[in-house]
């Protein structure tokens, strides 16, 4: 069963993942113009892109523990999911800047002095080089440094969770649950491995 699923997962071409990923913002845009996002489509789109971006990043963080603790293997999706998540977060920022705040002096002021914006910006800036190096050429060129660089994902996603908590008004459970899941997925990687070597490698072979 698992093997069949893993085979199917591997067979999904990357372009299909990117296509599916791109339909979401396109749908948001369509819904926003046709009333599907309520009376304030700007905020609705801004929040949806941020939240779904965080969710996709969480999915990215889930791939390696899934491989380790179950036999599900979504490794072949990880790059595409990471790039799609970056794309959502970038759009989240652009909607905030262009459609929400609009006034460029106010955008600058917010980026420089609002702590929750600063945290979000740092997260986005960390994701930028990761997205730019999500290709085979970069992996070859950077060698062992590539793995090191891409471990920054943990920090970026954690900051995304913190950014989500910081923008709430009263007390809400949801953003704390997100951060707890993110921190849990990072911590789980620190669990001691039962045997030497990389069990995932054998599985993937």
């Amino acid at each position, binding site marked *: 069963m698992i093997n069949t699923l893993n085979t199917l997962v591997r067979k999904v071409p990357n372009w299909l993942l990117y296509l599916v990923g791109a339909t979401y913002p396109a749908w948001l845009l369509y819904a926003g113009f046709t009333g599907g996002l309520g009376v304030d*489509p700007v905020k609705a789109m801004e929040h949806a892109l941020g939240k779904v971006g965080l969710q996709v990043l969480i999915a990215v963080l889930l791939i390696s523990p899934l491989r380790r603790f179950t036999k599900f293997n979504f490794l072949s999706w990880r790059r595409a999911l990471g790039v799609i998540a970056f794309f959502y977060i970038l759009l989240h920022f652009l909607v905030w800047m262009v*459609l929400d705040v609009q006034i460029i002096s106010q955008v600058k002021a917010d980026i420089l002095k609002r702590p*929750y914006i600063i945290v979000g910006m740092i997260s986005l800036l960390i994701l930028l080089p990761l997205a730019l190096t999500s290709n085979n050429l970069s992996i070859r060129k950077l060698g062992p440094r590539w793995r090191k660089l891409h471990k920054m994902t943990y920090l970026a996603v954690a900051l995304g969770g913190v950014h989500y908590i910081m923008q709430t*008004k009263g007390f809400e459970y949801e953003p704390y649950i997100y951060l707890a899941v993110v921190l849990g997925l990072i911590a789980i990687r620190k669990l001691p491995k039962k045997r030497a070597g990389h069990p995932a490698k054998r599985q993937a072979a």
Partner: protein
Amino acid sequence: MAHRWTNDLTHDDVTPKSAYLNRRQLMAGMAGLGLAALAPKAQAASDLTPTDFDVITQYNNFYEFGTGKEDPAKHAHRLTTQPWSIKIDGMVDRPGDYALSDILSKMTIEERLYRFRCVEAWSMVVPWNGFELKDLLDLAGVQSSAKYVAFETLYRPDEMIGQKSPFLDWPYVEGLRLDEANHPLTLMATGLYGKDMPKQNGAPIRLVVPWKYGFKSIKSIVRITLTDKEPPTSWNKSIPGEYGFYSNVNPEVDHPRWSQASERPIGGGFFAKRIPTLKFNGYEKEVASLYDGMDLRKNY
């Protein structure tokens, strides 16, 4: 005493400047001499265009029904508003439970087209129906020792399902200084667009203080207490560094997390342009004197 403050709701008229000035003179006369009853009703329209009814009723912060903007429209139907009474107590000559129907039989309902500015930097223009808070306070007879008015929203978690969450310390409470409460702009609203107050907007009766951020305009009021001490207010209790007692609309004093210099009018779709926020939400002439000598940066 109705019609102390007047505006005109026929918004599709263009405002002749002379008439607009006339309205200002009316205001000045009112503030200075209390002659509003003698002043003629302003002839001209305000230049405000009311936000669509559907927008006003589908985009609400009424956390008693959930934290999403659409939650109140979804969940407020559970609220039962009949019978309804307001307990008026504290420093008043005639404390007691005032049935809303009795109150309304003594009041003249007016229409007031007000700007509405949320602390979250969005805004609407709302044609409210209601009566001045002062008229209600006069019914109860405010004692000379009273300095503040405290308000309380209904607490009924079975109907107001948001109250089951610890989002805020329920019930919601708000307060005004007595001179703010007595100001002719301060309205007890019972409807909008000539209809009974929609439940998601604070049925059956809510406060509207147009020169303050929206959260001061407490909804579904069940208790009003006259006191000599500054009453606690919900958002100030929750995040004191962000929300003060006064909460006057002020483009010069930023919220710690965003600028208050401009606002997004709701209802304009994706490309609605921001507009500059006006001091005291455009009611500076009418209310600025209430805060003479006060540091509005400290008393945010």
